[in-house]
């Protein structure tokens, strides 16, 4: 508990306290500052979008890795972790090289919103795959066979037997993926160009506040993001419980 306090609780409290220096004004000013508001909208919106994409794609990739047999499966299984293991600024460099102005593929998304989506999707891909995969592996074949012999078709088995079992892990992966996305800095700062009102993410905005010596605004913005992260994680947990109970 002391460890947890030192590591998590005290720094969090410090942020909230710093933000409190400016009183309610600090929050209101930050929120009404249209540039900050745009950054919040962009970051939260893109993070939700990317998490949504991951829920579908990550689950499908996990399914394929567990259930299908194909050439190169072991390699794919290994490669999945690379975006996660790479330093984010390196990821940013890779993306800039591939989808930047000198793209060998002829795709240039630099300085557009798509670059933010792309960068976030790249770094958050492994989360859901890695949380769902072990649960799918553990799923007993005889449970699905039992459902089939009771008259369930493939779609029904998927919806009523498989999905409820993996929803908790999808939700856990989604929470991780969302948390990573709203805090992302390195991978998107290079490709997005951080144009105010257009492609500037919250993390970039916080940094520029600090560089400008405005710690109170930085802390206020940080506290707001803390609240958003908390809200989304709680919402995912509630959703997960409801789906898992319904059956």
């Amino acid at each position, binding site marked *: 508990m002391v460890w947890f306090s030192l590591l998590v609780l005290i720094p969090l409290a410090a942020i909230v306290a710093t933000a409190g220096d400016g009183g309610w004004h600090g929050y209101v000013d930050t929120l009404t500052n249209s540039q900050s508001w745009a950054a919040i909208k962009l970051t939260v919106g893109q993070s939700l979008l990317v998490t949504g994409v991951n829920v579908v794609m990550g689950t499908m990739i996990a399914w394929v890795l567990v259930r299908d047999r194909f050439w190169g499966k072991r390699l794919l299984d290994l490669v999945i972790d690379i975006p996660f293991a790479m330093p984010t600024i390196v990821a940013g460099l890779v993306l800039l090289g591939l989808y930047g102005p000198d793209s060998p593929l002829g795709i240039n998304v630099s300085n557009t919103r798509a670059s933010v989506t792309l960068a976030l999707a790249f770094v958050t891909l492994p989360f859901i795959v890695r949380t769902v995969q072990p649960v799918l592996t553990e799923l*007993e074949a*005889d*449970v699905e*066979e*039992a*459902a*089939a*012999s*009771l*008259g*369930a*078709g493939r779609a*029904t088995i998927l919806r*009523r*037997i498989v999905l*409820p*079992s993996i929803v908790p892990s999808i939700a856990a992966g989604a929470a991780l993926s969302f948390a990573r996305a709203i805090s992302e800095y390195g991978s998107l700062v290079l490709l997005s160009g951080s144009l105010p009102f257009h492609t500037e993410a919250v993390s970039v905005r916080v940094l520029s506040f600090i560089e400008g010596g405005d710690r109170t605004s930085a802390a206020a913005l940080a506290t707001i993001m803390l609240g958003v992260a908390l809200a989304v994680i709680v919402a995912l947990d509630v959703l997960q419980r409801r789906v*898992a*109970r319904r*059956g």
Partner: protein
Amino acid sequence: MSIEIDGVNKRFGDFVALENVNVSLPTGQLTALLGPSGGGKSTLLRIIAGLERADTGTVSIEGVDATRMSPRKRNVGFVFQHYAVFKHMTVAKNVAFGLEIRTHGGLRPPWTSRRLRDRERMQARVDELLKLVHLSQFADRLPSQLSGGQRQRMALARALAVQPKVLLLDEPFGALDAKVRKELREWLRRLHDEVPVTTVFVTHDQEEAMEVADEIVVINEGRIEQVGTPDSLYDEPANEFVMGFLGEVTRLGELRLRPHDIEVGLGPDLAGSTPVDVLRVTRVGFEVRLVAGTEEGQEVSVVTTRAHARALDLEEGRRVWLTPSNGTATVPAMKSLRVG
């Protein structure tokens, strides 16, 4: 005949699981597929259920060719060794699963009166089944809150809910401890007398098969060794394997027979008796086990009662004469080299 299996072969890679299996399983009876592990009995059961497909041969259930039918269309109930419960559903929901799928597939809107009536009917059926398997008070629990025996009874109710034409059980009591296993098999026998659906169960426990089944199919190394009632198998085994698998076997001269089918005498007054020396005497509960040596150095096991052993004053080193009892199941020992 309820289930007809004709010329079924099944291989897994190089391993021959079933080799030209032909068998008919009678309607309304409780049949045991008995044999050692890896002998192909579970594979045969899974082929009947459609969970496995035979390489060649046909399966028909109640006169309908089911060889290529998917498991969901066969209308068979299947009970797995490890229960295969739906963990996230309550006991009642587990039992209702098959009924729900059959009535509306969950697709009709919940507010229609038709669906309300369906629900009432399902509820009544679930209550009835839970009562049948003595789990009424556990209806709203999750399977993880039940013991192994209770989970298996729930799995049985779930399989029976859809009124299957045949009920298939794959080592249903294999994962339970000895006491619960014994209770459950007695209970299964009574249940079958109450609800006489054609039932086939797989077991490697010959005692279980003999106690519960009307008919036993002995399967070994992918082949059917013998089909018959428990008594006929025990008394007239077709070969050494069946004899050895259904009970203890010993050798007396050129015969293979059961240790309790040997009479012990104090003199050579019976025709065909063999003189032996008692080597060891072991008391196990109400019975006494002897190991005796013949003059040729053959060791013979004999089981007798305590009272008889006391009357004869059996102890180590004593000379006695052994005779096969009348009407004993015997198999000549030299015919086959296969060890049971």
